[in-house]
């Protein structure tokens, strides 16, 4: 600690250069934060997926429907402990840009299947008792200032009622929270019986996909195979896969998100490596004489090496912490896409990774100038002044 003022004073030597380097590091880490949050939003669901849950969809595509009657047949397959279904409603509330998901479900089995959605008991009872009832996640409720007792109109881009109207109305009877950070609390769920009865002839008795809970997660692959075999050679063959793989495949429609993010960050940090490395190299070159004086008065080669490395790390960690902090503040304001990225947040794990990167960046950019400083011969360094 007693050397800190010495390190700090060196950083203040060329204020403009240090500020510009700091700024470039800061911007890189803001970008890192946002890309982490976007990656989390797109593929974070994989981590949140239940290990004991399988998704059953139409073999051709997720947009092809499956008969609701499959549910009973699935329940008879050995190893299946629970089955629930959902259907894509594709609704719009006021403005198409204000996207959030709405799905018709069967309340009891749905809530049993997804225990990560926390709904107060009285609200659950109200949902069971209200045919037009819907529950909505806290994020969307706060976004639209909805509260229980509100009646909300939603226009479906897919489903028309028997009278031809695409306008549906739901009574908000509950607001659910997520048990864990990262649980998506944007969707609205309403009752399937109301939906199936009210919708027109097209699609009646059809659902989007099923979620299966297996009794033994270790036997999930075997159960998936049995499910697909059950519906082989039918008019609607199925494809069953773990929930994580399903979410992954969903996100992969945009490409390999992880690879894209890694490529962008790789390019950014490589540039920063050059910028900060150049700053440190210049800083050391400029004060060869001063380093010679330090050695003359008794600083060892190791201490000089450490001073330069600490200086370089201080620069990158300062930029990193400020960048990560700003990114955290900006990301905490929520999904910037009005609902397209419901799980948009900066994971703590990535925050720590960012901090680690800032230290590594300091070490890598500082090591060569530090070695150069360490190897300086005192007499030569003093002659150079």
């Amino acid at each position, binding site marked *: 600690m*007693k050397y800190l003022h010495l390190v700090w004073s*060196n950083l203040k*030597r060329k204020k403009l250069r240090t500020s510009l380097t700091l700024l470039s590091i800061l911007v890189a880490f803001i970008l890192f934060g946002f890309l982490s949050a976007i990656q989390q939003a797109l593929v974070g669901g994989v981590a949140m997926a239940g290990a004991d849950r399988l998704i059953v969809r139409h073999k051709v595509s997720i947009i092809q429907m499956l008969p609701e009657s499959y549910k009973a047949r699935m329940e008879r397959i050995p190893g299946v402990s629970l089955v629930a279904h959902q259907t894509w409603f594709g609704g719009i509330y006021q403005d198409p840009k204000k996207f959030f998901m709405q799905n018709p479900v069967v309340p009891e089995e749905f809530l049993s299947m997804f225990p990560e959605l926390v709904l107060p008991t009285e609200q659950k009872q109200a949902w069971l008792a209200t045919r037009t009832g819907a529950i909505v996640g806290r994020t969307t409720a706060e976004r639209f200032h909805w509260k229980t007792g509100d009646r909300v109109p939603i226009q479906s881009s897919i489903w028309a009622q028997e009278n031809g109207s695409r306008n549906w109305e739901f009574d908000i009877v509950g607001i659910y929270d997520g048990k864990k950070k990262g649980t998506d609390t944007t969707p609205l769920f309403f009752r399937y019986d109301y939906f199936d009865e009210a919708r027109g002839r097209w699609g009646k008795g059809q659902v989007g996909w099923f979620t299966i809970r297996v009794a033994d997660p270790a036997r999930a692959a075997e159960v998936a195979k049995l499910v697909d075999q059950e519906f082989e050679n039918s008019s609607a063959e199925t494809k069953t896969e773990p929930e994580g793989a399903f979410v992954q495949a969903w996100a992969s429609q945009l490409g390999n998100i992880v690879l894209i993010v890694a490529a962008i960050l790789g390019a950014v940090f490589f540039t920063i490596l050059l910028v900060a490395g150049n700053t440190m190299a210049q800083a050391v070159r400029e004060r060869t004489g*001063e380093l010679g*004086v330090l050695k003359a*008065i*008794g600083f060892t080669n190791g201490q000089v090496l450490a001073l330069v490395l600490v200086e370089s790390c201080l620069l990158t960690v300062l930029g990193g912490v400020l960048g990560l902090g700003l990114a955290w503040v900006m990301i905490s304001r929520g999904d910037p896409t009005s609902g397209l990225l419901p799980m948009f947040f900066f994971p703590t794990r990535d925050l720590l990774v960012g901090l680690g990167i800032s230290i590594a960046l300091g070490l890598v950019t500082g090591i060569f100038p530090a070695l150069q400083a360490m190897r300086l011969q005192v*007499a030569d360094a*003093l002659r150079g002044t």
Partner: protein
Amino acid sequence: MNESGTDNGALVHVDGVGKVFHRGSEDIHVLTDLHLQVPAGEFLALMGPSGSGKTTLLNLIGGLDRPTEGSVTIAGESVHQLSDRRLAGWRARHIGFVFQLYNLMPTLTTERNVELPLLLTHLSKSERKKHVAAALAMVGLSHRAGHYPRTLSGGEQQRAGIARGIVTDPTLLLCDEPTGDLDRKAGDEILKLLHALNREHGKTIIMVTHDPHAPARAARTVYLNKGQLSSEPLA
């Protein structure tokens, strides 16, 4: 011819020292079979023309460089045999340096500059502060403690350099042309200050200089020419 001081009780022993620099395929013999002894408490002025090897000799005595041959012993320690790491520690404990161009850190205040050698000791912050205040008082620079070098005159900067050199109370103070960058008046003040440090505080000082007024202040003057020492200047 070689110049020796009193052999008995000498603080500095330079015995048969030679220094060769290699420049490409050429060997440059800067010092040859040089002997010098400096008793504790002496103020020695080392004079000679440019390129005569004065600074090289000072660097060898201060452990900043190693002789090609011969030995340098300071207070019983064979300096030339120490490893780089031990040599650095030895310098921190025993040697104070004063440079021609002051070599203060421009980003540190005067007191922070003076404090630098104390960072290598186990002294607490308050103890360091006391030592710094004492050193600054000794060179008459207490009123400039919080100022940065760029705001000090040349003479003041050199006083700060001297304060940094003596703050650890070193065995030996080595000055490399301390008046070389100063005007006559400021140069005289620095010589007077070094003289006082030697007389009143018993500092052993070896000063490389071109200053014609230096011999008047030093207890002894030796002359270096073409790698050899003598007690008389060359005609």
